[in-house]
């Protein structure tokens, strides 16, 4: 199981704080996970499409679209940060 969490504008567009998902074993990267989520959850697909600039963190560390995801990970998706 992978926990996917959303923040800020992306969270509001999805309408959920988080999802617990079990993608097939062929889903091994962040990019593949996003594609799979968009396919399985239309609300997520629309939210991702509306948020083309995104950042990702795996287990609370910044990562890239081609970073590996595995069972048990927490994957956070969010718009570019705007603190400070």
């Amino acid at each position, binding site marked *: 199981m992978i926990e996917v969490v959303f923040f800020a504008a992306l969270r509001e567009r999805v309408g959920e704080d988080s999802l617990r998902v079990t993608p097939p074993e062929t889903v091994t990267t962040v990019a593949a996970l996003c594609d799979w989520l968009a396919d399985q959850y239309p609300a997520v697909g629309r939210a991702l499409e509306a948020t083309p600039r995104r950042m990702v963190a795996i287990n609370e560390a910044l990562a890239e679209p081609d970073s590996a995801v595995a069972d048990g990970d927490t994957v956070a998706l969010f718009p570019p940060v*705007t603190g400070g």
Partner: protein
Amino acid sequence: MTRIHVAITAEPLESHLSSEGQDGRSGAEVRFSGRVRDESGRVRALFLEHYPGMTERALRRIGEHAQQRWALNAIEMIHRVGEIQVGEEIVRVVVWAGHRHAAFEACAFLMDVLKSQVPLWKKELSDDGWHWVEARERDAEAAARWMAPASERAR
């Protein structure tokens, strides 16, 4: 040994006092405070969202990077979250060092990297309601200027 203090708080930062800097080792204390601008009356308030856990870890990590790069005695990074009124402090970064150059540079580095890598998101309240603030390209560029090639850094 650099002491690194990080905090996320929903309380006004004005009440936060630090006891750092009084042990005789720090000849320099550089403090940056970011405050809410009203953008010529357009903005009434901000709301800051964060990623509990990761935000604190990310702040500590950039503090550790600064500690490796400059000779520092202590770093404090506090970021406010929740609703913040015009004129109030959003963020405070304080650096204590033996000498001013390290303190000035490290403080600028911490703010530039905070703005592009630490999970925090701003919403603005204006006359037509709340709107998320879009990230600006120049903030990413400001952070990138610290990422010199490793060969240059080693000199």
